[in-house]
């Protein structure tokens, strides 16, 4: 198991290198080349000489490979993500301000999704083609088809300005503990994010459990006289857990992406809004830093999902040990 984890960590690191290579190379293709941010920092009428000096100050006169090596050296060996072009802060400073806020949003939505979607999917599979199943599937279909911002806006319309009056905006103090002192403000954004991911995951869960329920071992279990409940929870659920854990791991980037839309609807300054602002103002170090960080979180999430998969499924554990 440990060799497996180590091997996966090395692989993840290589993957991270590719991510950095891609994101680092992108600015070379923007209109105006890598010096485009200079005009965003110095103003659109900056003269060529100032732009040149700015470029030299930021090491842009070096060749591509040298620049990439310098960036790698800085990130990997010094854990330094650089200094923002636009905000007078280091990228770490920006990240440490906003990451807790977004992670809080995304993580509570993830936990709620698991708590709601898994039982829902199992129940639907157990009672398939019942009225409840059809209703839940229908609702999931509509939620899945709804653009996230539309759902948010409708929720705001009905639950904040309409039938009941929940706060329309989460507290925007930068201090991360605001999430504990004023939890009511988070009800709507977290509910939106949860609804959006429940729609996809519960449908997937239903499909997986249905697939498992037609397997031979389930029939055997039934034949030897196991009760319905036992078949469902001892045999079906355990085998359906594998794909669902993988999907949950893979849904992490989507969750962060979804958080981006939610953040801009609810005017909650988190990582998403920061990224959009940074991208629009050509703040390259910030975009790179946030992308690298979110990729690390995603890779770790996938790794955890796979390790957990080994815990719940003995067959995979054996495969891993022999591999």
């Amino acid at each position, binding site marked *: 198991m440990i060799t497996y984890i180590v091997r996966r960590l090395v*692989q993840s690191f*290589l*993957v*991270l290198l*590719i*991510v950095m290579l*891609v*994101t680092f190379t*992108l*600015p070379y*293709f*923007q*209109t105006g080349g890598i010096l485009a941010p200079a005009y965003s920092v110095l103003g659109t009428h900056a003269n060529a000489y100032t732009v040149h000096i700015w470029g030299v100050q930021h090491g842009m006169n070096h060749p591509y490979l040298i620049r990439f090596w310098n960036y790698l050296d800085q990130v990997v060996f010094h854990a330094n993500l650089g200094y923002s072009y636009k905000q007078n802060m280091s990228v770490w400073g920006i990240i440490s301000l906003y990451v807790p806020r977004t992670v809080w949003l995304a993580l509570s939505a993830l936990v709620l999704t698991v708590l709601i979607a898994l039982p829902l999917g199992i129940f639907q599979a157990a009672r398939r083609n019942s009225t409840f199943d059809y209703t839940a599937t229908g609702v999931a*279909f*509509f939620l*899945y*088809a*709804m*653009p*996230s*911002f*539309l759902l948010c*806006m*409708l929720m705001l*319309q009905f639950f904040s*300005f309409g039938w009941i009056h929940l706060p329309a905006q989460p507290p925007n103090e930068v201090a991360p503990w605001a999430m504990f002192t004023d939890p009511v403000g988070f009800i709507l954004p977290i509910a939106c994010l949860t609804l959006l991911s429940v729609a996809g995951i519960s449908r997937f869960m239903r499909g997986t459990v249905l697939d498992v329920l037609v397997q031979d071992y389930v029939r055997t279990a039934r034949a030897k006289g196991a009760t319905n409940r036992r078949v469902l929870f001892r045999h079906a659920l355990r085998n359906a857990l594998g794909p669902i854990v993988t999907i949950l791991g*893979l849904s992490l*980037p*989507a969750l*962060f*992406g979804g958080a*981006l*839309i939610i953040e*801009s609807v609810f005017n909650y300054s988190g990582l998403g809004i920061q*990224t*959009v602002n940074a*991208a*629009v103002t*050509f703040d390259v170090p910030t*975009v790179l830093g*946030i*992308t690298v960080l*979110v*990729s690390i979180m*995603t*890779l770790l999430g*996938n790794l955890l999902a796979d390790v957990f998969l080994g815990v719940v499924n003995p067959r995979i554990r054996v495969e891993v040990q022999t591999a």
Partner: protein
Amino acid sequence: MTTAESAELTIQTSSGVVPMWRQRLQIFMHNKLAIASVAYLVFITLACFIVPHLYQTNQTNQALALNVPWNAAPSWHHWFGTDSSGFDELGRILYGGGYSLTLGLLAGLITIIVGTIYGMVSGFFGGLVDTVMMRTLDALLSIPYLFLLISFITIFARSTTFLIIIIGVTGWWGNARIIRGDALLIRKLEYTQASTAMGASRWHVIRRHVFPNSISNIVTIATFSVADAILFLSALGFLGLGIQAPQTDWGTMLQNGTSQISNGYWWEIYPLAVVFVLVVVAINYIGDALRDVFEVRLLER
């Protein structure tokens, strides 16, 4: 006549001589909701591309220039009212729909074509090629999709062609993974191995065996890809990164509508929201129905 026909059909079904595609068509036709979805999509598509020629509305000059009312409630003159710029809402829905549907379809097609080629090559060649290709895919998948889209779109000029290419190029990763799984499975099957043993080249095997046998999966995923592309396009529209004025698409319109929702101008959001959500639901439902159709286990029942 009809009874004779149906009797003939049942006989053929029971003796099992009905051709595969016909059997599949029957399963699809049996699914009433799927038929309704197809009908709805055809209706909306025709409406978006034909009706604007018959029901001509001004979609270029804003209210101030033409002295038409903006934010006007639905009336005989403007069936769905007018929006905040004074554009006729019904005409705008059809006009924007043309862009949303075309872009969604083209972007979805690109994702499926690129994903299929990548997945097939990776899954079929296996070994080092597969490892490298899949780890690259892992890297791409772990970059948050929307973040990447946004940096792409701020980096490059925002033309319509570019929107298609960007969504197409960034959307194929998930598809490639599914197709690769298929290719891996088919590679292990006996007839593929027999073909290889008889000296068929790899490309021949991919073309003659792997591709035809995963076509059902490809068609199904393609349907979902189009729906996803339409949704992503709308998300971009919301962020103000979609199609630029004077053109419009449903995402941009929904964004405009949602900003008017608290003023009580319901006609700027609800008709379009219903049309939009139903389009995506219909496409997804057709995808589901196609999956049932191609499910071999269901064929005999």
